[in-house]
């Protein structure tokens, strides 16, 4: 078995006085789509934000291709090749769609411009609204743009936090198809409450419960394990 691209070992994270992650350990393999599922407050989003350096690691380690990255500054972690799509459609609202994408390119390159074109094939709406301010886009379009910001660079891994949150079912369906295309080209870690979407995109899964990994395995096994789903996700 090859070394995992991203590895968390016994990671503990506090937010203020609250002990949120209580020893999370997980491995993300290259070229796979890994989904973190669990109830609200289980620590899924905190795990992603801790990987990105937005919350400090109290103890434990995080490695990217063998290099320790815990407690590095977020901009440094981003430059190491981790793309992050925060929840709530985080785009730069007063910049145009094009400016958002050029900003995310970091250093404009031929490769970046070509990736922008492939993004337009994935999300044609973005091309239509290229000169519009991101603030005037619909929720779904904002989410597409937010995801695109992580795709315009050739990241080693892309972390996506609850992309379906607040979106209409028809938009979620389109998003699922797009995420399936994205996972073919890059390693994805997805946090998702919508189990249908998670099961469509994910290949590996980790169930988080009370700040710890309660279970993990192949997504196809979880889909058929109704008892496990009922116990940790509240769905049958």
């Amino acid at each position, binding site marked *: 078995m090859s070394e995992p691209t991203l590895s968390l070992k016994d990671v503990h994270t506090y937010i203020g006085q609250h002990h949120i992650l209580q020893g999370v350990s997980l491995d993300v393999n290259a070229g796979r789509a890994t989904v973190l599922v669990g109830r609200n407050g289980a620590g899924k989003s905190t795990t992603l934000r801790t990987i*990105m350096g*937005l919350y400090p690691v109290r103890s434990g380690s995080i490695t990217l291709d063998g290099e320790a990255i815990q407690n590095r*500054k*977020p*901009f440094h972690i*981003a*430059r190491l090749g981790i793309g*992050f799509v*925060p929840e709530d459609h*985080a*785009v*730069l*609202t*007063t*910049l145009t769609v*094009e*400016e958002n994408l*050029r*900003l*995310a390119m*970091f250093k*404009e390159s*031929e490769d970046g*411009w*070509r990736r*922008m*074109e492939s993004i337009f094939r994935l999300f044609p709406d973005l091309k239509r609204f*290229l000169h*519009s*301010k991101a603030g*005037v886009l619909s929720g779904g379009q904002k989410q597409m743009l937010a995801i695109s*910001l992580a795709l315009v660079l050739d990241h080693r891994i892309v972390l996506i936090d609850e992309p379906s949150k607040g979106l209409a079912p028809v938009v979620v369906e389109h998003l699922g198809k797009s995420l399936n295309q994205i996972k073919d080209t890059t390693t994805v870690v997805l946090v998702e409450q919508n189990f249908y979407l998670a099961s469509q995109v994910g290949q590996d899964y980790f169930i988080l419960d009370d700040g710890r990994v309660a279970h993990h395995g192949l997504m196809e096994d979880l889909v058929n394990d109704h008892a496990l789903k009922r116990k940790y996700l509240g769905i049958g």
Partner: protein
Amino acid sequence: MTDLTPVQRERWHEERTRYSRPGFLIQMAALAALVVIPLIFPSFRVMDVVAKIMIFTIVVASYDLILGYTGLLSLGHSMFFGIGAYSLALVIYHAPQPCWYHFLVAAGVALSLSVALALIIAFFSLRVKAIFFAMMTLALAEFTDILAVQWYDLTRAEDGVSFKLPGIFNLGWSGPTLGGIEINGRLMTYYFILVVSVILFVMMVRFIRSPVGRVLKAIRDNEPRATALGYKTFRYQVFSIVFGSSIASLGGILFATWLRYVSPGSTLSTPIMLNILLMVIIGGLGTLYGSIIGAAFIKMTETWLPDLQQAAETVFPNMVILHRLAERWILYFGVLFILVVFFFPRGFVGTAREMIRRRKAIARKRS
């Protein structure tokens, strides 16, 4: 060219046609107007208003870089303006004879002091909370104002410093008469201010249109997001503060060049800071071009609104009530400001851009 993506091609075409677009032609017309105004209206009053509009445009635009584009509320921008003004005044005042190189020395002193102070402010305040930046700039600005008032031997306190400029900028200098227009020291100073103001303004426009400007706007919008995209936001914020403050100090040098007199009240005081703040709000935050409108609005109303009283006395010599009402011009200034904020909530330029954007969006939807 064939290897370019469609978006790149669009940008390339845009770059090529930049100098034939209406926006550029309007800018050229405005520039031409600034060149001919002193020739058409040779009165000192008109020239004085236009020169001050140019100077304050630079100062307000530099403030817009910090507040409008980087999202940092500075209450000490007048300090940098004052540092520039005092640099020129004191270098010339304390020298035995005014010389050309005094401008360079003053610019060197002003820029060194501004960069040093801006760095100190940035390093001590940005790592804490945004409000600390406002507090620290306010405290330092007050300190500088008090220092200028108290240190009589250096600054002549509230008496201020009067000085003479060298060569063609000297008020006593008189050149040839061209087409009935006398070329004198005042006119040469006006054109010097025009040239430097245009250079500084173009520098700021290019700064905002550069990738750095894009990052600054991103920081203003959502700093954690900009960080997560790989940007060391602190470095960009420091750069913006240093750049904006340096330009303001050069604006101060222009101000001193025009007035040939500097005092704490005219450069370092709180009302100057409030004026800068008013100008940027009226023009439109984060628009840069709004600084022209903001500076013009305030300087023109400040200059011509007091004439109401005289106009009332001339046109209606027997209507005492009207004379009394006309005396309260400062009240009308306040009312005017409220009306502008009410009808143009994003400032003149900000609101106009918003309307144009909305129209374009509607047109796009229809097509």
